[in-house]
């Protein structure tokens, strides 16, 4: 009897593995492809081999030393991406945390309206805001400045950030606030000593969300920044790709370098991400 059950469960497990492995392989094809190009010498990656005959890290050297005319400003563009992502993350955190605190804990007037507006803004595709954003940044005299992109990304990320943080802070027990107020805490002390420590997991999730959003952004970066020295990495990659004679192995190497930081950040904070970002939507 027990052996029969055991064999049945072995059969079940075998079935599950047989589903899981092809799914994993399918997932890996593009990732493997990217890696394969990055370590292949020029023109050898197309040969249909599973592994390059002479794997090399020379492509990375070429990119890091900026030895191709498409890569002349690689480090500057990398820095632009880092700076814009970091500033967006910081600003979104400050704005959204304050706003969520005011709405959820201090019961600010008009909070409900702000929440509905925030949710509504989240529904709007970024492409819809492209024209007004482009004109507005032109009026503000910020075109080709990194602050144009930072402000645009803050505008896009904040509504969702406020929404998620408000939902998360609604779940904190009200008694804590009351106890702190009884002890004579000011709103700022309440914010700093009670609210911030309790909100840490959600703040990590939102900070990561904003940083990744800004790092990944293509459309606005493309519209608002145009000089070779002010663009971010995805725009540089897009320009690189649009050229007819683009060397694929360098393009893929740059793509891989560009894709690594967000993957690392995401991986580091993965346990906060899905629970943190869907917390607003899931009734617990």
């Amino acid at each position, binding site marked *: 009897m027990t052996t029969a059950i055991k064999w049945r469960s072995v059969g079940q*497990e075998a079935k*599950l*593995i047989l589903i*899981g492995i092809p*799914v*994993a392989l399918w*997932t890996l094809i*593009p*990732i493997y*492809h*990217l890696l394969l*190009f990055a370590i292949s010498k020029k023109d050898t990656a197309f040969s249909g081999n599973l592994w390059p005959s002479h794997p090399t890290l020379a492509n990375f050297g070429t990119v890091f030393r900026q030895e191709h005319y498409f890569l002349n400003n690689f480090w500057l563009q990398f820095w632009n991406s880092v700076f814009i992502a970091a500033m967006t993350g910081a600003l979104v955190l*400050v704005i959204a945390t*304050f*706003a969520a605190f*005011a709405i959820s804990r*201090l*019961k*600010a*007037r008009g*909070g409900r309206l*702000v929440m509905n*507006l925030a*949710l509504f*803004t*989240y529904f*709007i*595709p*970024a*492409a*819809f805001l*492209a024209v*007004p954003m482009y*004109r*507005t940044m032109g009026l503000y005299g910020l075109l080709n400045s990194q602050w144009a992109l930072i*402000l645009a990304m803050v505008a896009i990320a*904040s*509504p969702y950030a406020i929404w998620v943080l408000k939902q998360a802070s609604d779940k904190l027990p*009200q008694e804590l*606030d009351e106890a702190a*107020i009884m002890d004579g805490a000011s*709103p700022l002390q309440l914010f700093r000593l009670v609210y911030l420590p309790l909100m840490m997991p959600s703040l990590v999730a939102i900070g990561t969300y904003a940083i990744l959003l800004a*790092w990944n952004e*293509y*459309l606005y970066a493309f*519209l608002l920044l145009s000089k070779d020295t002010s663009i971010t990495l995805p725009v540089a990659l897009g320009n690189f*790709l649009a050229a007819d004679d683009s060397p694929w192995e360098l*393009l*893929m190497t740059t793509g891989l370098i*560009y*894709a690594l930081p*967000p*993957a690392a950040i*995401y*991986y580091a904070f993965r346990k906060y991400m*899905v629970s943190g970002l*869907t917390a607003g*939507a*899931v*009734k617990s």
Partner: protein
Amino acid sequence: MTESPALAASAPPRSAAHKKYDFSRKYWVFALPAVIVVLSVIVFPWLFTVFMSVHDWKIGGGMDFVGLGNFRTLVFDDRFRESLLITFYFTVLAVVIPIVLGTLAALVFHREFPFRGILRTIFVMPMMATPVAVALVWKMMFHPQLGVLNYLLSLFGIPPSEWVFSTSTVIPTLVMVEVWHWTPLVMLILLGGLAGMPTEPYESAKIDGANSWQMFRFITLPLLWPYIMIALVIRTIDALKVFDIIFVISEGGPGTASETLNIFLYLQAFQFYKLGYSSAVVVIFFTIIVALSLILLYVRQKTKWNS
């Protein structure tokens, strides 16, 4: 502290402490940064769009007041109508397929089996990938002669596909990229749902002799339904927002075969420089989205899946 009745009803009862120390004069400082951002980079651009939509305004040129002329042109614009259909086609596929596959994946990866951890980690990897890099590598893989996908097809004796280079296959191909990228998110949301599920119904169903399909159909699916709805809403919003992948891989082509509304808007504004015209499109959709979100909010309050 006056509030709308609905919020007051959902908030916990006001305590003595809150009454005694009224923060109403001090909290505005906390909301200030949000208010500044909202006014300068959300409200102002929107008002500006409405203003532009009634003008014929070209980049670098002057502007003329044309009233509702832009809206009239829109009604008779075949390219616009076509882009609506394409958007619909793309969105339906890019929502339904990840939901179905994500549900299946969640059911598989919820079970215990050897190597589950590593296989699941691999499966979730695309979510961490950044769209432009994803578009880049897929574009390479679609390459007619050199791409790896046609090579893989040839291994199975299947004739090469034209992928994004044919008007009939471009949308399904782009959906395939979207499915690769976002099915893991659906799976993770549903895994969250499965993890919180009670075991009792399954035990009693087993005693009553239910088979596994019946258990899925009558126990798992109903319990999972709220999570599927959440995944559906998130997927729909995300699918409607897709720009980078389409723009980098196919640029809306061949011809206009993959020109979704987002691409249409972009091309009208920044390739044909019809800023007033594309503003009119934005204003129309702004109105539609307001209506849709009001409906969604209404449904949400009625069903309380997020109270």
